[in-house]
């Protein structure tokens, strides 16, 4: 019997190699980061599509409010203009809706599907951790018996502990190997998985914006009799405003 309570300077035996543990941590860390990213992206996509919809709704509101104004009844030219604007806005809304649907289909839903893999991964990792703990516990038990004097019961117990340890160790090693093998594959699969989504998203945006450009280009041609430049427009507005300010009925301050 040794009476040394603490085994100083004798490091606890590492049951799994440090490199393995490090590899595991690295792979899992990357995946955890990916999980955070997808979660955040999912949220942001949602926000973005919501904002898109709100934007086109507010644009439609501009023209709707204009259309409902009694000014349209009196002023044919104004009515024509507002109607054209309204048509453009409604088309924009429709295209926007389409774009959002497209994004929903090609980006958000795949994201969700991808995201649903993570809980199982986490579960697997947890189970591995569990197995590791069991392994450690039993390993410690075996070591304890190994250090004791080799008497009959001790040997029987050691034997039994070893017997118990074996399946647990096998289980852990299987799990560990599986995870180490599969985590990088899972991590790399994201490239092939998300690239089409990315391209689709970009294309949806490009298609949408080129349509919008066409729509508003047409509208501009329809509205703008001579193509005024910004500066001209500004000067014109300024001139009108000062004309208004010169009126005695307008408060000039």
């Amino acid at each position, binding site marked *: 019997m040794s009476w040394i309570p603490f085994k100083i300077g004798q490091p606890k035996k590492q049951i799994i190699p440090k490199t393995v543990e490090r590899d595991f941590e690295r792979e899992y860390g990357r995946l955890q980061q990916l999980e955070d990213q997808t979660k955040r992206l999912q949220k942001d*996509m949602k926000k973005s599509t919501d904002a898109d919809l709100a934007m086109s709704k507010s644009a439609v509101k501009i023209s709707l409010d204009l259309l409902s104004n009694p000014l349209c009844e009196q002023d044919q030219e104004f009515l024509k203009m507002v109607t054209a604007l309204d048509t453009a806005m409604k088309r924009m809304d429709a295209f926007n809706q389409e774009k959002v649907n497209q994004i929903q289909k*090609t980006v958000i839903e795949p994201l969700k599907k991808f995201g649903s893999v993570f809980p*199982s991964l986490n579960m697997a990792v947890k189970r591995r951790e569990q197995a590791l703990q069991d392994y450690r516990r039993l390993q410690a038990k075996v070591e304890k018996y190994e250090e004791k004097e080799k008497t009959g019961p001790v040997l029987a117990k050691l034997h039994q502990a070893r017997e118990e340890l074996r399946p647990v160790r096998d289980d852990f090693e299987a799990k560990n190997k599986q995870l180490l093998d599969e985590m990088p594959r899972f991590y790399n699969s994201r490239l092939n998985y998300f690239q089409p989504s990315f*391209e689709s998203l970009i294309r949806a945006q490009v298609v949408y914006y080129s349509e919008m450009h066409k729509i*508003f280009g047409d509208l*501009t041609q329809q509205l703008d009799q001579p193509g005024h430049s910004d500066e001209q427009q500004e000067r014109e507005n300024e001139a009108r405003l000062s004309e208004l300010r010169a009126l005695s009925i307008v408060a000039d301050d």
Partner: protein
Amino acid sequence: MEPKEATGKENRGSKRKNLTFLRPRLYMLERRKTDTVVENSVSGDHSGTLRRSQSDRTEYNQKLQEKMTPQAGCSAAEAPTQDEEQQMRRMMTKRSKIIKELLQTEKDYLNDLELCLREVVQPLRNKQIDRLDVDSLFSNIESVHQISAKLLSLLDEATADVEPAMQVIGEVFLQIKGPLEDIYKIYCYHHDEAHSVLESYEKEEELKQHLNHCIQSLKKIYMEEGKPNLLDMGSLMIKPIQRVMKYPLLLCELRNSTPPSHPDYRALEDAFAAVRNINVNINELKRRKDLVLKYKKNDEDESLKDKLSKLSIHSISKKSKRVTNHLKILTRGESQVKDNTFNREEKLFRCLEKTVRHCVKNISLCLQQIQDAMVLALQSVMELQEISYNKDEEEGGYSETPNKAPNPCNDFAAHLQRLVLIPLSALLSLFPGPQKLIQKRYDKLLDYNSYLQRSAGDESDLAKKEYEALNAQLVEELQVFNQAARKILFNCLCSFSTLLRDLMLVAQRAYSAAVPVPLLASRISEIQNRVLEEVHNLNFVKDNSATFIERKLSFEKKKPVQIPPEMPRQTDIHRSKLLSTYSAEELYQAKRKCNATQEYDISLLEGELVAVMEQKDPLGSTSRWLVDTGIVKGYVYSSFLKPYNPAKVQKVDAENRFCDDDFDNISLFVSSRPASDSVTGTPEGSISDSSSSLSGTCGKSEVNGTDIDSFQEADEQIFYAVHAFQARSDHELSLQEYQRVHILRFCDLSGNKEWWLAEAQGQKGYVPANYLGKMTYA
């Protein structure tokens, strides 16, 4: 001096031509200043009269002479009194003196104007000083000059080479009264402002110097002429006003000194009235403006204290009177003074106000959301990109282009502010002024109406004047206002559309640049398919980690599957071998099926015979016994075993099946189904093989135990009543507590899962699902 004379001569020489060609310019000048509509008919009319007067002059003169001479002859023949004759002559001399004065003063006035134009207005205009607005100082002084020149030429024409008796001055004024009024109206209207502008200019040293410089040169000229009466800029500016006020006085005097028999008398009377009218109109215009300014100022910069102090009895009574009057009009529909033009313009004005307000609100909201959406879209694109591509293999073009995109959006915002929102907001801020005045006009209209009914002379007049002044001013300016406001609104909407177009283009470019692959290469559906494929490819990860339970199951599956080869089932041969080798005390029988859980454990089926070799395991636990099945030796938990009683075993077994043990049996099946499935490679065979009693049980239950599947199905369908249930109709089935029922369908005809179709003791009917409990391992 020389140029002046030259212009003078030229004036005289080509005055008619000059005038007709100046006319359109004159009106243009006028129009530049304000938008008052000047009837073109005036000019046409006028040139007509001009021509006539020219061609018919000689004829006209002759006629006049004829008219006069008989009178003269008559007077000579009838020998009128000396007094009359003398008075007539005195009047005529006085008249010619006045005419001369009129001509002279007009000449001087014209001269002053010319000098003013040449020495002050033109140089100032040529200097083009930014802060010095010559127009606001002198407004339409050019037109004033022209009208004066024309008047002078007409007067010249009417007096030169014409006998005093034939001179008709009134006609000249009548001819010119239209343009005269319009031009002086404009000048006088702006004079007040011009005066305040001048004061502000004189405060600035630099501007003051410019002005002084002009004045000095003008003074020099006057000194040379010997007329040192010029004082300053203000006196220069007020000259036209003084002049126009002088006309009625001169004409009045002229009329008074014209004998009633003179052909000019009538014309002068009319001219006097006309000129006086012009002055009244000008005054009225100014008053209108003052009134508007007064009411406009009224509510501005007014604290609560001021308001309270203003709350006098007079104002309260005025207000209450207005309210009652308004009610009267509403209820009785009393006649009211109406102005259709005003109503139309007011409606338009209100519509515009509403439109602009909505536009400002909606467009700024929209801008906000466009910005949000663009930023968010970009952010998500970048995040997605980050996920989709490895950082190290990122190509330069990928990451850079989208980053540039926020700038156009900001650009758009700035442009939109500058071109749409700021002008619209500025426009919107201009609406309250007129609104206040419109309200005031309604008040005045009410006052006017109430006085009209009571026909109070003086007050009614005042109210009428105030109302009319306000109304006229509003009608006139609202039209201008509405047009300009409409134009701004149009411009802004156009700009808005243009800006949206540009924004879309920029966004499109930004995104197009970010895409490396040609756009049409892969279609959306293809991408979808690819994505789905990816998902399928991912399944190995998914399967491994996701379906935890499945794996757990499969774990359990594996071991028993491996064991059977090692541990074949006990047969009669083994049994007899056990019976022969071990004593009866050592023989035990498995009460229930038991599965091996640890190494060296053995699995037993119910009823299997074992011989106990040691009633403990190596660790000393007495609950685990080492037993021999005749095939292998291993450990079994003692709780699964019961002593073997060869005499009883068959009978008890059988009885058990018949009565109380039914329950147990069934639950056993339920719980151990997967295990028994897995244990037996060929279920039927092994079960009938291992224990004949089992098939007996099967026979007893409702379902004929030939097929294991239907058997399982049957026991799945067996429930017991947790509570008693009393049937309420033929369709329902009464149940006793703990009564066993066989469920035929787990829903009713309409698919309601609350009611199940049950069968018990040969009767069928519906029972509520929540009254039933599953037969479980209790």
